[in-house]
């Protein structure tokens, strides 16, 4: 790969080569080479109330080579930068896991590996995204296709026309990169987007053709929605003015998924700009629903210690300070129970499709 093509280097490639320049420059001046990397934690984010999104703060952390605690990470960061530059030159896209394997080897004269697990290389890619202000797509790294869409939308993917209303129960698998260069929304006649946390419930709605009856787009991210799904929802919202409703389990993790869709995530705060949907609504499952819909207590699950801790964290997040949300979370803590979407099947297999969602939508019973 050293024999790079004669092509002009891309902007991203230049940024990556900049990492090497940092090292060379520091060495020339007999200084400890350092990369300053924006901190990706709760301490370094601001909630922009006006825009309704989470933004990254200005705090940075120095990662230096000659510090025992950071030396390995520094070395790994340079290795990842090298692998990413290789992708740029070859114009390929790859997965996080492949980056891990590409950069893993045994260091000379030792039995120490450059990486011991993928969990070491993944955060470094995010570090480079933030440091170089390059998006993951621009770095040519894709995540797995971990989401599905079905509904009256027509997309173009690699020149192929994809009519999401004619893809049966399974729908179209949302790729991780859905930027307009790769995917175009040709037509969209839906009235709203329903983003479902769980694949199982999405299947239920898809099988029941809920989207046809209520003229909506059904999206799922199988848990925490990946970037592709969030970005697609955002584009549908932005380009076609569709309201977005989020349907998740009634537990702290469900609440957090909703907040990620709405305001952006703490870890990827720098991405909120293009992914957050500040107008998204929380349609369910609310902690008030079991009472409203007569769900018996025995289909609830006792909150474990982790759940309780997480809920208490959420209660303090700046973007959960609205009165309704404080009530919502406190009510869950007070009952000490969480409910899965699947629990609705206790009433009837099609309770979600036939009763729950229609009623919610009709009564506009959601949280903002």
């Amino acid at each position, binding site marked *: 790969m050293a024999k790079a093509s004669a092509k002009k280097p891309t902007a991203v490639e230049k940024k990556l080569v900049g990492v090497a320049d940092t090292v060379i420059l520091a060495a020339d001046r*007999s200084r400890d080479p350092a990369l300053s990397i924006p901190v990706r934690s709760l301490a370094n984010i601001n909630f922009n109330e006006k825009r309704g999104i989470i933004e990254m703060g200005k705090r940075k952390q120095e990662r230096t080579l000659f510090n*025992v605690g950071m030396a390995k990470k520094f070395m790994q960061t*340079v290795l990842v930068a090298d692998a990413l*530059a290789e992708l740029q030159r070859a114009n390929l896209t790859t997965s996080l896991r492949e980056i891990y394997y590409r950069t893993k080897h045994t260091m000379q004269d030792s039995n120490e590996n450059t990486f011991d697990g993928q969990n070491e290389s993944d955060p470094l890619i995010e570090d480079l995204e933030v440091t170089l202000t390059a998006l993951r797509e621009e770095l040519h790294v894709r995540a797995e296709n971990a989401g599905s869409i079905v509904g009256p939308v027509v997309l173009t993917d690699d020149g192929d026309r994809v009519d999401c209303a004619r893809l049966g129960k399974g729908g179209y698998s949302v790729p991780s990169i859905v930027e307009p260069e790769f995917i175009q929304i040709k037509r969209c006649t839906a009235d709203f987007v329903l983003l479902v946390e769980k694949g199982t419930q999405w299947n239920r709605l898809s099988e029941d053709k809920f989207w046809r009856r209520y003229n909506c787009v059904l999206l799922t991210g199988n848990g925490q929605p990946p970037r592709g799904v969030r970005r697609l929802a955002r584009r549908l919202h932005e380009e076609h003015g569709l309201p977005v409703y989020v349907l998740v389990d009634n537990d702290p993790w469900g609440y957090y998924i909703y907040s990620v869709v709405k305001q952006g995530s703490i870890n990827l705060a720098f991405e909120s700009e293009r992914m957050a949907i500040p107008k998204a609504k929380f349609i369910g499952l609310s902690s008030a629903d079991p009472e409203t819909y007569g769900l018996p207590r025995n289909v609830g699950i006792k909150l474990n210690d982790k759940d309780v801790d997480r809920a208490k964290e959420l209660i303090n997040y700046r973007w959960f300070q609205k009165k309704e949300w404080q009530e919502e979370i406190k009510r869950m803590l007070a009952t000490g129970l969480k409910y899965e979407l699947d629990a609705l099947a206790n009433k009837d297999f099609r309770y979600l499709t036939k009763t729950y969602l229609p009623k919610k939508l009709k009564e506009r019973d959601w949280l903002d």
Partner: protein
Amino acid sequence: MAKRKPKSKAAVKSRPARKSKPELKSKAKSKAKPEAATASPAADPKAAEVKTPEAKPAKPATISAVEMGARQREISVSEFFTKNRHLLGFDNPRKALLTCVKEAVDNALDAAEEAGILPDVLVNVEVAATNGAPPPSPSQATRFRITITDNGPGIVRQQIPPIFAKLLYGSKFHRLRMSRGQQGIGISAAGMYAQLTTGKPVQITSRTGARAAAHYFEVQIDTKKNEPRIFENKKIDWEHERGTQVAMEIDGRYQKGRASVDEFLEQVAIANPHVRLVYRTPESETKEYARTIEELPPQPKEIKPHPYGIEFGVLLRMLHDTKSHWLSGFLASEFSRVSSAVAQEICATAKLSPNAKPRNIHGADAEALYKAIQSTKIMAPPSNSISPIGEKAILHGLYQQIKGDFYTAVTRSPAVYRGNPFIIEAGLAFGKGPEQTAQTLEAPEVPLAEGEQQDDDNELARVIRYANRVPLLYQQSACAAYKSVLETSWRNYGVAQSRGALPAGPMVVFVHMASVWVPFTSESKEAIADYDEIRKEMRLALQECGRRLGVFLRKRERAKSEFRRRNIFELYIEEVVEACARLKGGKLAKEKLRSQLQKIALKRTGGAKTDEILGHESGPEGLPHSIIVTPEGPEGEAPVSPRADPSKGGPPEEAAPTKETTKAAKRKTKRKKR
């Protein structure tokens, strides 16, 4: 049970009768003894019930008190122990083999030490000869012949039969003096076990000196009378000029590993470096544990009981048996640490006349006296009655028998529980020894796959426990020594330990309790009872060992981490340089960048200073009573090399150089080099 209805009465009555019949039968069958002695106490309360006036005799199974009385008789100790052999450590064949060896070795060592002779003991365990058939392999064999030969003082002719064939006969029970044996049961119980399982008598050869003749005896116990039965008694020629040899044939099982004869003898060698021990295993291997200390431990003095440790019943007996005519004289002469002033004080507190006759004190007076003793302030008992192994000897023992990088030992000052003085000693061997460490370093380096780890070594420490120099191999978890190792927080000293578990690491923890009376939890002397005073002393000793280990580990860790620091920088620089060169598309002066970065690294890691630390990786560290072993050899109080002395009259065959001796020799040459 005591219902008034006549019907149920009859039922109760008939039961003892029915019960005793089959018992009778089985006894008669199995041992050809007329009656089980134990049966009578069981029947006793029932007999009383029969006698009650309103009892109507039920026809089929009535026994009169007279008939029952005819059955009630004394039980001999030997009979009792034949039935309850598990109480003495003969519960299963494997343990029985160990117990027999243990009892014989304990006796040999006690005798030699008391006579002021450096013990030389030969233990020979072999598969017993079978009639013509080829002998089974040691692991399959069920019958063994054990021979223990010592160079002790020998035994006078007339004492040989009772010592080996009469239970509760011995010299140690009646005095308060530290010794391995305590009751006078051990060796005769072993003989009894032999007689019970193989029917063969115990064979003893003993000679008291060069000018005396050697006597050969074959004896068994008459279990009913608890008296020796002599089968053979003759003078023979014996190649040893002094000593005793015991041989017996028993049912047993030989299995190596935990709580085996091998482990026992190894542990004996650790705690008794003044003993030369040769062990011929059933597999015909010879293991020699050389003597590393050429002096006997100081002779423990015999002491009188301390008043605090006396029980009420014992006090009554002593009052009755004493030769003193006055109470104050009795107190001052029969107890340790009771001066006449203290005796007067006790009498005053008990409101008794100092001139009262001891024999006339009983009932309330005796109780008052007992209470007065407990409430009077009396000095702690003298501690010259116990002789600890000593820090140096423990160090030598551990160093000889266990491979490690670090050794330390602590002897606490004497303490007292229930009026009995005792001393706790603890020791520690840590590491795998320089040879093995070097080996792991030399192991071929294979790149590690995901989830694999460099060190998958999670072994737990081994605790070796001793009471009066005798290893304790069973019932570890019931033992105060084991518990105190658990409750010491080893994490403070840099050793991993999960909750409620032993510390993890290549480590042997040594705990010894020396006392005139070691409180065992059971007859078979397997675990030390849990007295607060004992636990506390053990904990303090272990903590001191731990602290020293901590110092050693920290120092070693520091040197290592400096080395590592330098090392990782060098490794990573290489990677960074290569990656940068690729990023720059090959247009980079690699050499220049590398040397620049290396220069920075050297500056950052302290340069020459680090080299100094690395060069002097360890030293004695100013740690008391410790040995540190480095690839260059041991530092600290390492033992002088064992002197080979075949001259002294020891067991006949001089062992061919074995593993142990060659290892010792290697160490010796290493030391010389330094």
